[in-house]
């Protein structure tokens, strides 16, 4: 390896099995965006069945085969597969790989002035293990019985007795978890060890902090799910009873082949021990992106930078001790529920602090309404709605009515869809010029933004009313219930919103590919930003920086009085900032 920089590596080493964090970041980005699109398509299919239950799907109804959609009408098992795989793909194959694998991988080493990640080969391995996990998940659609259909939460005993797709799901998850673990080790070591001279922890961009905390969450929360996955595999393949009690009678047949003695709740503990921190894995890097974009486009330092960091650390820590608020309905006494409801209320405070800091950062700024800024700004109220609607769900008594209804769906989608995914779009528009050397077209960007913003609210806002009316989630056909039938019109509205939202992504897709070749060429620092990634050329070469930078100041020194420009980059000495006029 040591002689590599003397000659050009082969195409395969350079673009396929590359160890360069930027190539891996782009690989992650492309793969994860594809999965995001796939997950979205699955949801659009589901929305047909929800809006028009039992009706033949027009145009494309016949391509899914007799096993899934006989006569173009969706079967409940296919609907459940779509639901489970939508969740899995969106979270584990789409959003997390985008936030951490793509943005984290590409931007974080640049922001800390590092030539690469600390363990480049591990980084490559992490991507390929993720890729294998993705392939396994996709393949599972084609096994007999279809893909996993027990929900993305895969609660046993249902998942223990489910069709073969569940086993594939578990193998896929083990791959994805392993990939995340490798990545998180790499991220933490890189952030701690490879910062350039002068870049102290409190001069790090907030995005890097968010990545650091996120990596700790992945590192410590994912292994229990890996263990749980192994246990469920044992249940399915070796006939053990980790999650199965004695005396199960499935379809009238006593299950004598199992020993019993297990507990279905064990899975839920291990699952949610991961899956609550996972929520913060989905949101913290998004907050990081939003903070970067807001600071850059208000031309003003972030308000309460340190408070935001402390809040993030606190969030990360607390996220490990709130998991059982997903389990209030599993038969929980007063003491434990009081404990978890209290920690849940406590964890809402740092979120409020971060959101408040971001909004106050707007005050007395000079706000440029660029496309990334619009997405970042839209993120704020969407995240606020998502966060606030978590409040009644965190109160055990209110949760009695709202648990497992559409209210929950609305709540977490507001956090991750118009929340995190808007942040992802902000990040794409913001860093695209760094990655490609060309700008994304802003007219198409504005169209993309405004239609996405309107339609995404039409998709998710009705869900709060549906949930309030008591409609359960994961229903193949809600009209069988009087309270579901009464709000069916909202479902229709939501479905149309989803399909329109799909159309609204067309400008983005066009923009994404065309601008790669036809976009306006840019210099190193098109946004007049301060952090180190904008010092490197666009796109940065192998090794990132021509000379190793030295950092002189904090990350968001905009509009400093007496400076010649309205931004003082981290790597420019104070004298140089004020001398040029």
């Amino acid at each position, binding site marked *: 390896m040591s002689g590599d920089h003397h000659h050009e590596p082969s195409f395969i080493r350079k673009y396929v099995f590359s160890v360069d964090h930027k190539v891996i970041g782009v690989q992650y980005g492309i793969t994860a965006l594809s999965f995001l699109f796939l997950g979205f398509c699955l949801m659009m299919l589901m929305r047909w069945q929800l809006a028009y239950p039992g009706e033949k799907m027009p145009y494309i109804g016949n391509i899914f085969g007799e096993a899934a959609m006989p006569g173009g009408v969706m079967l409940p098992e296919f609907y459940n597969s779509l639901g489970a795989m939508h969740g899995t793909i969106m979270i584990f194959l789409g959003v997390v790989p985008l936030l951490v694998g793509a943005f984290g991988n590409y931007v974080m080493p640049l922001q800390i002035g590092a030539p690469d990640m600390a363990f480049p080969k591990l980084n490559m391995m992490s991507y390929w293990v993720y890729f294998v996990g993705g392939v396994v998940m996709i393949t599972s659609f084609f096994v007999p019985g279809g893909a996993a259909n027990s929900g993305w939460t895969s609660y046993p005993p249902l998942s223990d007795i489910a069709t073969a797709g569940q086993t594939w799901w578990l193998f896929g998850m083990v791959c994805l978890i392993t990939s995340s673990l490798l990545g998180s080790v790499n991220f933490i070591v890189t952030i701690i060890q490879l910062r350039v001279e002068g870049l102290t922890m409190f001069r790090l961009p907030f995005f890097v902090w968010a990545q650091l905390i996120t990596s700790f969450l992945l590192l*410590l929360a994912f292994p229990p799910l890996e263990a749980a996955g192994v246990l469920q595999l044992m249940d399915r393949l070796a006939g053990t009873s980790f999650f199965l009690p004695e*005396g199960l009678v499935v379809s009238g047949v006593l299950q004598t082949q199992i020993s019993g003695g297990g507990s279905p709740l*064990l899975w839920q*503990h291990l699952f949610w021990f991961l899956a609550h921190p996972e929520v913060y894995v989905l949101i913290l890097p998004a907050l990081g992106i939003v903070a970067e974009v807001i600071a850059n486009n208000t031309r003003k330092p972030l308000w309460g930078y340190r408070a935001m960091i402390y809040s993030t650390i606190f969030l990360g820590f607390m996220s490990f*001790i709130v998991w059982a608020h997903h389990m209030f309905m599993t*038969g929980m006494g007063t003491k*434990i529920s009081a404990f978890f409801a209290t920690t849940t209320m406590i964890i809402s405070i740092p979120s409020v602090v971060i959101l408040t800091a971001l909004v106050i950062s707007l005050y007395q700024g000079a706000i440029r309404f660029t496309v990334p800024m619009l997405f970042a700004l839209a993120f704020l109220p969407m995240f606020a709605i998502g966060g606030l609607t978590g409040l009644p769900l965190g109160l055990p008594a209110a949760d009695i009515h709202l648990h497992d209804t559409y209210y929950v769906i609305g709540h977490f989608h507001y956090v991750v869809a118009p929340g995190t995914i808007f942040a992802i779009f902000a990040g794409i528009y913001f860093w695209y010029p760094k990655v490609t050397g060309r700008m994304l077209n802003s007219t198409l960007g504005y169209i993309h933004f405004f239609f996405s913003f309107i339609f995404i609210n039409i998709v998710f806002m009705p869900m709060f009313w549906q949930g309030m009316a008591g409609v359960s989630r994961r229903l193949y056909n809600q009209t069988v219930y009087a309270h579901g039938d009464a709000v069916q019109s909202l479902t229709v509205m939501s479905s149309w919103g989803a399909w329109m939202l799909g159309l609204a992504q067309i400008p983005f897709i066009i923009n994404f590919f065309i601008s790669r070749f036809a976009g306006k060429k840019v210099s190193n620092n098109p946004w007049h930003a301060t952090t180190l990634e904008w010092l490197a050329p666009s796109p940065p070469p192998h090794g990132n920086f021509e000379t190793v930078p030295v950092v002189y100041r904090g990350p968001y020194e905009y509009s400093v009085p007496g400076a010649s420009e309205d931004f003082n980059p981290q790597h420019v000495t104070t004298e140089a900032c004020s001398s040029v006029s």
Partner: protein
Amino acid sequence: MSDAHADVSKHVKAYIAVFATLAVLTIITVWASTWHLSHPMAIAVALAIASVKATLVAMIFMHLKWEKAGNIWFVIVLTVFFFVVLVSIPALMHSDRPLGTVFSSWG
């Protein structure tokens, strides 16, 4: 890698001593299982001995005794805390159920 050669060879004695201690503790823990202690007591004794052994391995073999890097200590403390949460809270929840809950579907 601050420790010089002399330091390292001094450690060797410690390693041998730790090995002897671990071997003895293994024998004790087996012996203790024949004492016919009450169940909680037997668990406490066995886990206490195991913890001592684990601490010895971590401190001496894994060089934590000589470890000055704060980051490693931070990671260890954090992990141990979450480990305790992970093993204790699910077990605690077992005892706090709605009044009248029975752990059997049939009967």
